[in-house]
């Protein structure tokens, strides 16, 4: 296995995962033999990430904090080819979903995952789910500290945590180590933001009670500054308060955001701090040695500084407009001079957002090995990231990505759409998401036009559960079912940027599926007419309000 610059399983992890695979193998055998009813079996399969969707079982594979080695990605490709239909869907929770798994094959798929230190535990159920983090982690120029160190500590603490396996509802934690939040920490059950206080110490702002879904809420600050070594004890206190007071009588009011909303953040803080006071100096205070041992596994790769300007890159920038646009939108600065972070767009025009074939997964694993220290990240925006690319290699990486169809220069643009699987796959959905995303992306395919429009995030959900994050889309699209007809509710002004996090406001009556593209077109036209120099779509919306957009879409009111 190529040396990785992130956590490697120890014997304890390997034993735990291997035992879990064999337990599940026996559970599947008993179910197929009729020894277990579906009622008995369902929670067991869900605890192993195996859902039953419209057409087939779906396996949701955890990708902790969105970090993958090329070897792991090759294995995912191999599993998708051997046990599925040769493709997978990267999700807004940095996971991978395989949509066509056979129940009888699921234990073998899990065993194959275990070979590369992966599993599907806690990707379902009312437990602490896969912890997500900034997809630029370990490479970002603005990073105060690598959030994955803490995500890994949380992963170890929360894996099969007996007290938190049957919470009132699922629980999602996101961590960012940068002031520019790329992990959407204000819309998670708990968001953790590493920052440096005036004394120069690094600690966490603990944000609680955010979330999307049926009742979207922006998280509130529970603790302004938490010393790092107190993280687990504080999380345990918070989860304990939620477990004690969170509602279990109503599925739709069971998330921690409802508890925080009902009792108020001050009361929540009082309860958490009281619980914390009783436990803070217990076994969960992290010893320095433990933190350092995990931090060592995330030691950055040895990247000798290189020239930040490359002649061939500049020459191609001048001669190849698409490459120039790609540099602008898909390449971000790295903390080491002479390197860059490259986003491979899984959103080529007209394609299902976030989908990659086994061949594409292998192709990008090749690129990661050749040019990015054999490492990748999955973003919650459903793209793949090459975190450590030398600037002089950018033309080669661009060419290789283009051969895979992943070099679309659209990151952050109107066709970089987040979309849930929707009614084509999902048992919960009311309307389709992917075909809507495909039509929008085909309509706005021109790269020059996309770059003229500028940063504009469209997020599409096929039901109110909001897996497609529509509440925080600059343009949010929610599919609803009205008497058997798919309609799409449009909202404007959502945002996940830190300090500007906002929930979108519904523009007006929902539109039919065939009107979605022209509605988006009208919204974009309104923005282009009204924007002032340097204004992004969402800035213009904030300045002029909804009325001009309404008039353009629905006519004079």
């Amino acid at each position, binding site marked *: 296995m190529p040396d990785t610059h992130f956590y490697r399983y120890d014997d304890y992890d390997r034993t735990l995962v291997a035992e879990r695979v064999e337990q599940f193998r026996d559970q599947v055998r008993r179910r197929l033999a009729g020894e277990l009813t*579906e009622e008995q079996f369902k929670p067991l399969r869900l605890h192993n990430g195996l859902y039953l969707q419209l057409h087939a079982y779906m396996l949701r594979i955890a990708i902790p904090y969105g970090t993958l080695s090329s070897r792991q990605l090759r294995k995912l490709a191999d599993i998708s080819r051997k046990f599925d239909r040769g493709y997978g869907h990267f999700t807004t929770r940095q996971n991978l979903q395989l949509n066509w798994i056979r129940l009888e094959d699921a234990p073998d798929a899990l065993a194959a995952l275990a070979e590369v230190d992966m599993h599907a535990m806690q990707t379902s159920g009312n437990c602490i789910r896969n912890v997500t983090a900034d997809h630029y982690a370990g490479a970002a120029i603005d990073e105060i500290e690598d959030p994955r160190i803490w995500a890994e500590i949380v992963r170890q603490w929360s894996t099969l945590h007996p007290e938190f396996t049957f919470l009132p509802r699922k629980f999602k934690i996101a961590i960012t180590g940068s002031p520019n939040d790329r992990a959407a920490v204000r819309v998670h059950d708990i968001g953790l933001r590493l920052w440096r206080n005036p004394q120069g110490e690094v600690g966490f702002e603990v944000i609680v009670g955010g979330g999307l879904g049926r009742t979207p809420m922006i998280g509130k600050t529970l603790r302004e500054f938490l010393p790092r070594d107190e993280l687990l004890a504080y999380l345990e206190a918070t989860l304990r308060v939620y477990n004690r007071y969170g509602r279990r009588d109503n599925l739709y009011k069971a998330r921690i955001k409802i508890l925080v909303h009902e009792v108020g953040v001050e009361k929540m803080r009082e309860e958490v701090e009281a619980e914390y006071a009783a436990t803070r100096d217990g076994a969960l205070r992290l010893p320095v040695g433990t933190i350092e041992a995990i931090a060592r596994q995330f030691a950055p790769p040895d990247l000798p500084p290189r020239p930040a300007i490359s002649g061939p890159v500049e020459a191609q920038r001048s001669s190849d407009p698409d490459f120039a646009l790609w540099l602008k939108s898909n390449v971000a600065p790295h903390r080491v001079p002479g390197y860059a972070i490259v986003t491979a767009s899984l959103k080529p025009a007209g394609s299902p957002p976030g989908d990659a074939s086994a061949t594409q997964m292998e192709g990008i694993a090749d690129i990661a090995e050749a040019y990015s220290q054999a490492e990748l990240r999955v973003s919650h925006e459903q793209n793949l990231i090459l975190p450590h690319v030398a600037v002089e290699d950018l033309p080669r990486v661009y060419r290789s990505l283009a051969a895979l169809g992943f070099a679309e220069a659209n990151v952050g643009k109107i066709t970089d759409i987040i979309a849930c699987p929707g009614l*084509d796959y999902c048992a919960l959905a009311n309307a389709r998401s992917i075909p809507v995303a495909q039509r929008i992306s085909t309509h706005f395919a021109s790269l020059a036009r996309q770059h003229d429009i500028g940063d504009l995030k469209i997020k599409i959900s096929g039901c109110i559960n909001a897996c497609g994050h529509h509440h925080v889309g600059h343009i949010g699209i929610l599919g609803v079912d009205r008497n058997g007809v798919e309609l799409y509710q449009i909202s404007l002004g959502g945002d996940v940027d830190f300090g500007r996090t906002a929930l979108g406001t519904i523009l007006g009556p929902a539109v039919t599926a065939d009107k979605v593209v022209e509605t988006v077109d009208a919204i974009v036209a309104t923005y282009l007419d009204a924007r002032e120099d340097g204004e992004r779509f969402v800035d213009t919306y904030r300045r002029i309000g909804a009325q001009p957009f309404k008039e353009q879409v629905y006519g004079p009111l």
Partner: protein
Amino acid sequence: MAKNLSGDLQVASANRLVDGMVVWLDEAGQWTDRLQHAAVARDPRGAEILLERARAEAFTVVDPFLVAVIEDEEGTIEPLSLREKIRASGLTFEAIAADAVRYA
């Protein structure tokens, strides 16, 4: 599980235990992957009986339920709801490398 639109005609559907594939109960009490082979209940009492029969034959499937359908003059049946149309006919777009059937 599924939402049914109102309709007089019903078929019984489920997902096959071994692979999750969509199946319907046929006249012989077997689960088939072909909607056109499904047994059709033509009145509420018939639908109740069909569902009871489906539940009795549920060893190899998961969670049987009734699906409202319409039938044309040639006897071709089609689900009323989009959701059930998609269950019957597959994805409505070309998935990468998928051999799912396009719903027209």
